[in-house]
């Protein structure tokens, strides 16, 4: 159904492997210094962004970060206050939503209650004056692609949440948009269905090779589905990178703490050599990787993911001496709250447990350590 444009070999890459956003895929959307103000509120602040053709890109951020406004500026429901939006090389200024080569899956689907499923899917084709026989054929094909060919004459009020979601996707995709915009399309569904539909959407995107731009505040969804993630906060793009890179190499404290959990400790940089920094926290010296120039003596943050903190009992060495303050069994993993001995430093660690493994009780003395590349220095 997609335009079948140049097959981008990179889309074959699985979401786990990730695709770096810097690969030279052609940009289908280009935002240049786009800002949007509502009265005094700056919803989107000087955003520059390129969205590569054929990728699954996710706009991720807390509510109010500007991601939905950004999406609505692409759809044409909002005009940027300043800056330019280009879609497929065309400046979109003044182009109303109905003349933009994009289609949207709305948050609560916005299916027309006075039309049945196939009539909903044919709405866009009718608008484009596609002759009825071929419109019908295309609509049926779209229903088949979304695995809902059996719902053709169903009324909207008779659909379940998951079915409604698929109809909304079919209704948008049938118009062969240059980009499919998805505004938190899974937010209204329960957790199990959400997980299932994630993979279905991802599969659909890979089959059709259509560019998907997906808005969510759910980091799990973003990590599982996207080729690349645009992390936003306060109207600005914080980081634009692959899922893997965002998780493993966040570029600031916000990125580190918004995606997954992280131990973030204030530290002073003592020395830097070959991308490895020595930092001091409460009198204890630790090593962490540092990307880019880190001047000595700077106040910075050291961060390490809880599941990368290894714990063992007994033995001496360069490891941290820690005391367990609390432990929580959470199913497959145990979470420990730790204090570094003789300091105020607090850490969280997560370890896998197998049946029969002992859980360290509060008060236990342990050794904590992590691999050299697992801790990073963040300047902001």
């Amino acid at each position, binding site marked *: 159904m997609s335009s079948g444009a140049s097959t981008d070999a990179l889309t074959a890459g699985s979401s786990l492997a990730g695709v770096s956003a810097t690969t030279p895929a052609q940009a289908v959307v280009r935002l240049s210094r786009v800002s949007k103000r509502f009265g005094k509120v700056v919803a989107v602040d000087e955003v520059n962004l390129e969205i590569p053709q054929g990728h699954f890109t996710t706009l991720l951020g807390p509510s109010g970060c500007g991601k939905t406004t950004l999406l609505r500026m692409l*759809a*044409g*429901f909002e*005009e940027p206050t300043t800056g330019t939006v280009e879609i497929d090389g065309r400046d979109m*200024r*003044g*182009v*109303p*939503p*109905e*003349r933009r080569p*994009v*289609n*949207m899956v*709305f*948050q*609560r*689907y*916005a*299916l*027309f*209650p*006075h039309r049945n499923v196939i009539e909903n899917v044919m*709405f*866009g084709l009718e*608008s*484009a004056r596609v002759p009825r026989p071929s419109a019908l054929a295309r609509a049926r094909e779209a229903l088949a692609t979304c695995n809902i060919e059996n719902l053709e004459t169903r009324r*909207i*009020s008779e*659909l*379940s*949440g998951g079915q*409604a979601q698929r109809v909304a996707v079919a*209704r*948008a995709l049938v*118009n062969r948009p240059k980009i499919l915009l998805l505004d938190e399309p899974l937010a*209204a569904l329960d957790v199990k269905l959400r997980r299932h539909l994630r993979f279905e959407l991802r599969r659909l995107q890979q089959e059709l090779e259509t560019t998907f731009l997906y808005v969510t505040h759910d980091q799990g969804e973003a990590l599982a589905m996207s080729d690349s993630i645009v992390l936003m906060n306060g109207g600005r793009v914080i980081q634009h990178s692959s899922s893997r890179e965002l998780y493993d190499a966040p570029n600031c404290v916000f990125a580190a703490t918004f995606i997954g959990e992280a131990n973030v400790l204030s530290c002073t940089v003592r020395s830097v050599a070959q991308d490895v920094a020595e930092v001091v926290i409460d009198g204890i010296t630790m090593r962490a990787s540092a990307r880019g120039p880190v001047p000595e003596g700077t106040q910075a943050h050291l961060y390490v993911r809880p599941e990368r903190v290894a714990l063992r009992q007994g033995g001496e060495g360069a490891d941290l001496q820690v005391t367990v303050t609390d432990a929580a069994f959470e199913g497959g993993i145990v979470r420990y709250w730790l204090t570094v001995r003789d300091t105020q430093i607090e850490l969280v660690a997560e370890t896998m447990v197998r049946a029969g493994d002992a859980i360290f009780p509060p008060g236990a003395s342990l050794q904590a350590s992590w691999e050299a590349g697992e801790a990073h220095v963040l300047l902001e």
Partner: protein
Amino acid sequence: MSSLSKRRKDELTIAGELTPLGVVLLLAFFVPLSLLLAYSFWKQNGFDVVHEFTLASYVTALTDTFFLRLLFRSLVIGAAVAFFSVALAYPYAYAATFRFPRARGALLFAALLSMFTSYLVRVYAFQTILGETGVINSALKGLGLIHKPLSFLLFNSFAVVITLTNVFLPYVVLPIWAAMQSVERNQLESARDLGARPFATFWRVVYPMTKNGVRAGFIFAFVLAAGDYVTPTLVGGPSGTMIGRQISVAFGLLNNYPLGAALAFVLLLAFALTAWLLPALIARIPRPPAVRWAFSAPLRASDHVRLPLSSYWAHAYVAAVVLFLFVPLAIIILLSFNTSSVPAFPMRGLTLHWYARVFSNITFRDAFYTSLKAAALTAVIAAVLGTLAALAFARHKFRARGPLMGLLFAPLAMPGLITGVAMLTVYVALGVTLSLWTITLGHLVYATPFVVLAIAAGLSDLDPGLEEAGRDLGRGPFGVFRKVTLPLVFPVIVGAAFVAAALSLDEFIITNFVSGSTMTLPLYIWARLRIGVTPDTNAVGALILAGLALLSLAAWYLTRLTSTFISRRGESK
């Protein structure tokens, strides 16, 4: 792409949507009021008006003790009606909301239905009930309790207050009702959780949240009652006459427009002063911390919501209000089938004789067709103008939105008497022949605000995402309106048109001034009543009631249907 910015386009759309209704209201309401104001400063010379500035009419209006007494009495009666209406309406809305949640829809419909069931028939029903040969007296005599009819029931201020309270009670129920719905169950539960006892919960949570509804209802009833002229004429007698009657006489018999106009503006000024003073008065009501609510009673432990007013009292209150609203109408309907021509119970037997007699009357048939035509015209025109205006109000935010809505609803807060005489002065000044068209225009001014309200409510129930989806799928603004918005709100529009038809069918106060020799059904009743009550008038009244009830039911069904239909979408499990 296009030379116009989105903002400029929006402004043009809003202007286009509001202009048609704006023109109608301007020509049929605001220009007439301005002319009326001008008249109040012109000079009356015999039966002619000279366009010379003078304060003579105001001097007369404000110094003649006759007018001052009438003005004072009107304000007192208005205040009494407003007070009794609030006293009935508040517990009604309260009990419906917190005690009978399952009957809530039906109780709201009862209030709405009585709002749309004939003003004139109600007034006339009270004449029938309270008169010397009326229902109460004949019942008391039949029971042997009295030998001579009680004459103090009718033709005095008491009769006026009770009748006007009956007529305007629904206008007080609705704003209080609306305010009451904003109180949420969990707010009451959290008040309880924080240790508030039932009375404290009422006084510190419910009352503050509904105060504005009380104020709005009070002012509504006060203004409409104090400015009334029909009720004092029919049930007031010499001691129950009011300023409104004098205003209507000045425009009728006396043919002294400047005096009538001056009296009208004095009355409006008095209203404005009251509306301005009222909030301060309400704010002064002392908190009665130690006083137990009169109806406070221990509640069943199963009650989630602990509020004053026991179930026993709640039932009594709701029943009393419903009976008060509908028994007068039931009496008229029953009497219309009575074989006897004396309006008394028990009935002698059933007959359709009066209906047959009415329909054989050519004057009645003319009035009947005129009413149908006026209702149909009003419904169609109000639906078109109202849909356009509702789109502007429901879909756009613009700076003039609040003030413009205020202007739109001004005709509702204006006593019909003043609207009527103002329109009359324009027609007289321009030499317009009074006809079906002047009647329809009068009905439009009064009915369209309701239509705008109903349709705007329907539009705001609609998920804005639906219209955006229509744009996203390739339709322009007009295409979206035609393919998405209109099909979805069409039942609401039809329902609102039925409301307009009902209002038109029943309108009397304005019609009386702008009809000339054309007669509508309420005017026909009015003419008959001036001759004296005749039994076939009951049949006409019953016919009007039946028409209004059918229209209201249809309107209710259509608007309800739509809102459930629309709101089911999107929240699929």
